[in-house]
């Protein structure tokens, strides 16, 4: 029911079911739709408190109705992700829409978040269904397997799914301290089995400056 119209518009066909989407991201619809803001990402009082405390704010609305609804946000590229019982980790700023059946939550990411400039927490989506995530430029999906770990620039990381361990590595040498660094002082390393979404653009991070 999620389909892409071009690379920047998400069309969702609905027959009485509901989706969660970023607040204000509807650009057009036909048929009958109702929009309702979900406080705390629709995770109840507990989610509301957690999101306040962790700073992983996500303003989400519930869209329900019959017809087709189109979503887009500031001309960002959109990627569709299908979840079959596994977990998707995505920055709340990259989240566009998901089936209402997917559970959302927050998890601790450790030092990676600080280097990304996104805070220490990230949003998770879990269950069976589809989700749409946004990236600055078309994202590539890179597979990580036991033999092939992957290292990613924190500013270009968008999301990941599957059974992955992440560790933070720094390439800070004496050159960095002299201001002669290559601009790649921090990286995130993924090991295990899963998929990583990487965008062809880098957010402003502390790591990019050194």
């Amino acid at each position, binding site marked *: 029911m999620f389909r892409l*119209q*071009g690379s*920047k*518009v998400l069309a969702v066909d609905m027959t009485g079911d509901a989706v969660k989407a970023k*607040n*204000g*991201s*509807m*650009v*057009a*619809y*036909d*048929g009958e*739709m*109702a*929009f*309702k*803001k979900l*406080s705390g990402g629709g995770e109840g009082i507990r989610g509301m408190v957690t999101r306040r405390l962790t700073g992983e704010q996500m*303003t989400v*609305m519930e869209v329900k109705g019959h*017809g087709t609804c*189109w979503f*887009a*946000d*500031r*001309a960002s590229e959109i990627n569709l992700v299908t979840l079959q019982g596994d977990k998707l980790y995505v920055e709340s700023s990259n989240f566009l829409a998901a089936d209402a059946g997917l559970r959302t939550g927050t998890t601790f990411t450790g030092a990676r978040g600080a280097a990304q400039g996104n805070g220490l927490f990230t949003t998770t989506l879990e269950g069976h269904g589809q989700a749409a995530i946004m990236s600055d430029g078309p994202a590539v999906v890179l597979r990580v397997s036991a033999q092939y770990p992957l290292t990613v620039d924190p500013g270009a990381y968008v999301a990941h799914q599957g059974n992955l361990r992440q560790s933070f590595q720094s390439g800070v040498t004496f050159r960095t301290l002299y201001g002669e660094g290559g601009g790649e002082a921090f990286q995130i390393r993924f090991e295990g089995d899963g998929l990583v979404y990487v965008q062809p653009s880098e957010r402003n991070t502390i790591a990019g400056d050194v």
Partner: protein
Amino acid sequence: MAFRELNSKMIEATVAPGQRLFSQRGAMLAYRGEVSFTPNLTGGQGGVMSMIGRRVANEDTPLMTVEGSGTVLFGHGGHHVQVINLSGDTLYVEADRLLAFEGTLRQATVFLGAQGGVMGMVRGQVSGQGLFTTSLSGHGAVAVMAHGGVFEVPITAQRPVHVDPQAYVAHHGDVRNRLSTALGWRDMVGRGSGEAFQLELSGNGTVYVQASEEKL
């Protein structure tokens, strides 16, 4: 066809003697052949009275007349460009979204209040469109700018379409529009879904929507 899309952000226009094009001033990127660009004081067609009309209506985007023989490339601000071909019907579009249009089209300024009365005026204010909009009618091609690409949504009598006023680009055909509000108590307490105002378009035609909520 006078306009050819080179890529998503640039068009190539062919000018021949005796044919005129209007384009936004400064939107020429390159040209081949003998082409002259004349700033258009009256800001479009229709002489001095139309000029005054446009000034009053704040729909007076600076235009230039392109004449001669050759090809011209147009593009502006890295915005996506969509070419819309008109065959006898009328396109409604904001003047500042117009990149170029053929001289065969009739240009006019439309008072939004005439379409839907007081709500029409409110709609103009909410969507940041002002109280007036530009209409182009006749046979010819129009190049319209939008942020992040455009998609078309057909409007049929059974299926009215609702559009976010910020994402609305243009529409053509026999379409009535009105502002519908979904304001509820949630919006009053700052818990709105960000979709309180919508443009409801009904009738028969097409609406062009951009993939972004940013105005140009």
